[in-house]
């Protein structure tokens, strides 16, 4: 099979890859959070582990994946239910700009162990 790699093709492939990553994460997320049923001490120990840099990095990665999948999903809605096919490339880059800004705003607090409001850790 031969593909012509333009905006539509890349965004389609990335949608599948991010979708696959997200369902893997959801399965893992549901599994890890079932430790809530084992009581506070065990859960808090688990949450301390999650503060390690590698998990912070994965968390930021997750944020990026979620933002891409959401925004490209919005683009797909415009194409399927509106007249998005006429301007889907422009729409893609417009949404990606919004996504990049959202990513920065969302990722910095995760790395700083802080929230946008500041305050205690």
């Amino acid at each position, binding site marked *: 099979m031969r593909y012509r790699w333009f905006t539509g093709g890349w965004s389609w492939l990335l949608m599948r890859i991010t979708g696959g990553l997200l369902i893997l994460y959801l399965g893992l997320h549901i599994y890890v959070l079932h430790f*809530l*049923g084992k009581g506070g001490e065990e859960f808090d120990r688990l949450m301390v582990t999650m503060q390690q840099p590698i998990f912070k990095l994965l968390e930021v990665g997750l944020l990026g994946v979620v933002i891409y999948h959401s925004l490209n999903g919005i683009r797909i809605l415009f194409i399927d239910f509106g007249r998005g096919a006429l301007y889907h490339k422009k729409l893609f880059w417009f949404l990606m700009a919004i996504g990049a800004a959202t990513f920065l705003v969302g990722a910095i607090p995760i790395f700083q162990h802080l*929230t946008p409001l500041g305050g205690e850790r």
Partner: protein
Amino acid sequence: MRDYGFGSGGAFHWFLQRVSGVVLFILLLVHFLTTHYFPVGDITYQKVLARLSQPGWKLFYMVFIALGLYHGINGIWIIAQDYVARSSWRFIILGLLMVAGLILFMLGSITVIPFKA
């Protein structure tokens, strides 16, 4: 044998994939904001307890889990149908996906529903 692909409710799932996507977008926004950005600081058992002991939040998360699993598993199914042509393989894949989804849904349910202070 029944063909597990075109003409077997595909358009309905195509539509539901979009509807569930929109709902998930809103639920995910609420989920991210309430768990990661407000309240301030790290996630602790006490903070999860404060939310998840309320019936409204239990309902929120049951809907979230169900829709998330539907959307995700339907997504894998859509991809699988692009690469797997034989209906016997499709049948096996669909079966495995449904079983995996059901197990994860039950695991989520036994976490969310009985959780109390």
